[in-house]
């Protein structure tokens, strides 16, 4: 067993804060890093000490492997936690960390490399007897036609190296196949510098279901109840809930066992997630990919299991064995949890990032409400990074109460003047189909007219008008921000000599 004493958290925003909070609980010192643009960001204040690692562009700071490792050594750290995004799934970095005598809080580098490649991970899954969506790599156009007809249309063309929807194409008819492959190859090449694409069956009533698991270095593993992540925009999740309203307990158990089987076979240890596509029509599930890191939506699992997954990651990195059995874990599970992602995006304008200063910020609070945020009032949402402001997680005894609680918490979440996903999320939690649990990955596009730009019949409109007039007229004790409080140019410019 090794005892970790000081950890460098190679990330920013809410996840850095989330990790640092647990480190503090465990009596471990945390070292933060920040780019020029993040000098005044919230995560720095949660670190025991923080270091400037370079220019705002991620490539020069949060993705600068050497700089981060040197900083860790300079600060006498014994481990690095990568969070998610940035360097979290970079096997080269994981290897470098270990070669520099530091502990990598994550899965082994070799295993990350094998699972990181989509084709390779499918082969591993198949060899473990886990079903994958029918399909295969495209070698030639003729072979592609043959394969597509075998598995049956519609089919999906995907980039081998990719994610995030880039290089992805749905084809409904044989005659469109050739063009789609061409375009997908070009996109894949532009986005990932690798034109390899593969073909797979496109599932129409598809659900995105994933299994969180933990595996220690002695081969003990645990799987958690499934998370349903089917509400997505641009192939990115905005709502996750656990357990799923779609699948039954028997299937959930099968998926959990499959997840452990495939990852153990790949030599995995630490926390991770296996993503599956669930076909509601046929009740089949297919292996999709492994996320070899802590995920954005991990709090959902934490809320219903009582586990601190970051603490578990550190335990495993410290070579502690998992002592709990799967049955014991199953007995601990209770209630229902939902997470909403609050992005600074203009939902009525194709989810364009909305950057700028958060001038007004109030978080919701109360029983069963958790906010993992990376911002405070006055913080700036920067163009250089992911526009995730916070994650709002609620927990309640059952799904219906969780939805109600989420709606109330979203109403209490006041952010201005930047635009956020809050209004859209509120519409989703009021939507009949969502409430009934009858939704799949197409939810946002099918019901877009009801969910976006929705006209309401507001109840408190009159009060709002009166208050507006009151604010406009009683100007003596109240100046509209924009006057009086503005800094003088002489103060703004600072030490300047022309």
């Amino acid at each position: 067993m090794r005892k970790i004493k000081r950890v460098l958290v190679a990330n920013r925003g809410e996840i850095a804060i989330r990790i640092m909070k647990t480190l503090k609980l465990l009596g471990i010192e945390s070292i933060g890093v920040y780019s020029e643009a993040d000098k005044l960001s919230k995560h720095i204040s949660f670190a025991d000490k923080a270091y400037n690692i370079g220019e705002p562009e991620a490539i020069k700071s949060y993705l600068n492997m050497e700089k981060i490792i040197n900083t860790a050594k300079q600060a006498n750290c014994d481990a690095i936690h990568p969070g998610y995004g940035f360097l979290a799934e970079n096997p080269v970095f994981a290897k470098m960390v270990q070669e520099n005598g530091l502990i990598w809080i994550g899965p082994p580098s070799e295993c990350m490399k094998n699972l990181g490649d989509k084709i390779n991970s499918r082969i591993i899954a198949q060899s473990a007897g886990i079903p994958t969506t029918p399909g295969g790599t495209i070698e030639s156009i003729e072979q592609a036609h043959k394969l597509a007809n075998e598995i049956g249309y519609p089919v999906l063309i995907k980039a081998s190296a990719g994610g995030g929807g880039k290089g992805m194409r749905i084809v409904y008819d044989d005659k469109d196949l050739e063009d789609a492959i061409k375009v997908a190859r070009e996109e894949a090449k532009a986005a990932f510098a690798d034109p390899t694409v593969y073909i797979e069956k496109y599932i129409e009533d598809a659900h995105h279901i994933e299994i969180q698991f933990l595996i220690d270095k002695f081969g003990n593993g645990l799987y958690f109840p499934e998370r349903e992540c089917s509400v997505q925009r641009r192939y990115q999740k905005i709502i996750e809930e656990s357990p799923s309203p779609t699948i039954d307990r028997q299937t959930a158990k099968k998926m959990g066992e499959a997840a452990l089987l495939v990852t153990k076979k790949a030599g995995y240890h630490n926390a991770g997630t296996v993503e599956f596509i669930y076909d509601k029509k046929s009740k089949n599930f297919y292996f999709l990919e492994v996320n070899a890191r802590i995920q954005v939506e991990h709090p959902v699992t934490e809320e219903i299991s009582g586990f601190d997954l970051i603490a578990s990651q550190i335990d495993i990195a410290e070579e502690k064995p998992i002592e709990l059995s799967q049955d014991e874990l199953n007995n601990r599970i209770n209630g229902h949890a939902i997470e909403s992602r609050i992005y600074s995006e203009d939902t009525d304008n194709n989810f364009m990032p909305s950057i700028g200063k958060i001038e007004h910020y109030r978080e919701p609070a109360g029983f069963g409400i958790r906010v993992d945020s990376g911002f405070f009032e006055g913080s700036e949402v920067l163009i250089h990074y992911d526009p995730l402001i916070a994650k709002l997680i609620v927990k309640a005894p059952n799904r219906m109460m969780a939805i109600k609680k989420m709606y109330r918490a979203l109403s209490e979440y006041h952010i201005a003047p930047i635009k956020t996903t809050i209004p859209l999320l509120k519409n989703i939690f009021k939507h009949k189909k969502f409430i009934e649990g009858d939704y799949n990955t197409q939810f946002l596009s099918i019901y877009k007219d009801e969910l976006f730009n929705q006209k309401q019949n507001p109840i408190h409109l009159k009060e709002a008008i009166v208050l507006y007039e009151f604010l406009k007229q009683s100007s003596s004790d109240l100046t509209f921000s924009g006057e009086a409080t503005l800094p003088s140019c002489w103060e703004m410019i600072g030490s300047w000599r022309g």
Partner: protein
Amino acid sequence: MAKIMSNINTNSEEFKKRYEFNKKKVEEINQIREELAKGGPEKAHEVNKKRGKLFCRERIEKVIDKNSPFLEIGPFVGYNMYNNEAPCGGIVTGIGKISGKEVMIIANDQTVKAGTYYPMTIKKHVRAQTIARENNLHCLYLVDSGGVFLPMQDEVYPDKEHFGNFFYNQAIMSSMGLLQVAVVTGLGTAGGAYVPAMCDQVIMVKNQSAIFIGGPPLVKAATGEEIDAENLGGADVHTRISGVADYLANNEEEALKKAREIFAHLPKQEKFKLDRSTPQDPLYDPDEIYGILPEDLSIPFDVREIIARIVDNSEFEEFKPLYGQTLVTGFARIGGYLVGIIGNNGIIFPESSQKAAHFVELCSLRKVPLIFLQNITGFIIGKKYEHQGMAKDGAKWITAISTTNVPKITIIIGNSYGAGNYAMAGRGYNPRFLWMWPNAKIAVMGPQQAADVLSSIKLAQLEREGKKLTQEEIEAIRKPILQEYEEKSSALYSSARLWDDGIIDPKKTREYLMLALEVTLNKQIEDVKFGIFRM
């Protein structure tokens, strides 16, 4: 407001060429500025140090608020004049914040001929006081001067805006409630004695500063009395016996600290409440200005491209965009402050003159400061325009900008030729500040035309003498004339003579304007009263 859509291709060859050219030009200018800022010769600095005295620029750094700007006025004065004996004119002037107040600082450079006053020193001192008076700024004098530079006394002493004008200005400003403070760090002799004496509050440094109407040699010559400087008019004498000074400091640092305290206890002035919103940087990088300005000023460029790189969020609400298009007028914000901008996009026509006069009227009634971006070769000529009344339309404009009540700030970004200079608030029209860009030109007419006129006079004379000249001979006469003319219309030539307040880096124009605008607001904007507009 509408955002300006830029048409500049930053990847074009032309852009890159212009960028390199202007960048080099700015570097050259910066180098000259740095050289001038060193003040007098190395030896003089050594002597100064030996006496335990600070350099005037060090004094300024110590007296202004930490982390605050210093807006220097006239940093190129004296360049290539007086055999380069008086860099910066031997005096450093500029606006800095002292204990939160904007103050005009006038500091003698004792390393330049013992801080004596050359003609340009006088001009710069008076210019600094004028800025203070026009913008309601308090003044701090860091006195360390041996009085007038005797060899040139005829050019510094007798006239209206010469030495005597200093004290008149001090008295007037004091009566306006603008505090006049002196820190005497060296000698204040003869006329120099009156700079501190005319101040509201005076600080002297023990064993270092002295003030007297006549120094020890003069006393000896006149009365036979033998006395040293300290006993004649030292800090002790004036703070204990004569009452000429008010505070005694043990050293310079203490004296400068005292000055900060004096300003700290001054009530804050009410600034003019100009409409303001949250400041925003321009959408386009000001650095791109380098790639927009052509090397050759006869090639036109769209002034909107410059405006886009100066104003908040690149937003510009253009006034009369379809009328008199060789002049661009409109409203924008700089540092959040609402301003009116007038820029040139070609020569001036009767329509553009009327448009300008109209726009100046708008700004005057609304009390919105005016920014002029000069790139002007003149007014249109020819029968059609004379008959149309070009002169009376030009007169309307000049009447408007002369009698307007709002602060004017002028930047010469390109050409400044002929009457165009007047209409665009040249020096004669009392803009509160006037700056030039490094490649800008100022003269009564363009160099090619001037050289033609000048050489044709000479050629005519030679022809009368019966000489027949070849093309080469003509060129040989024309070329030196052209060269001299070009040199005399350069920004450096102008700035050395204080025809402007300094040459500035185009990409820093926004900061200059932000600082200057706030300075002008110290003075309330009165109601406007125009003269007669010729109709």
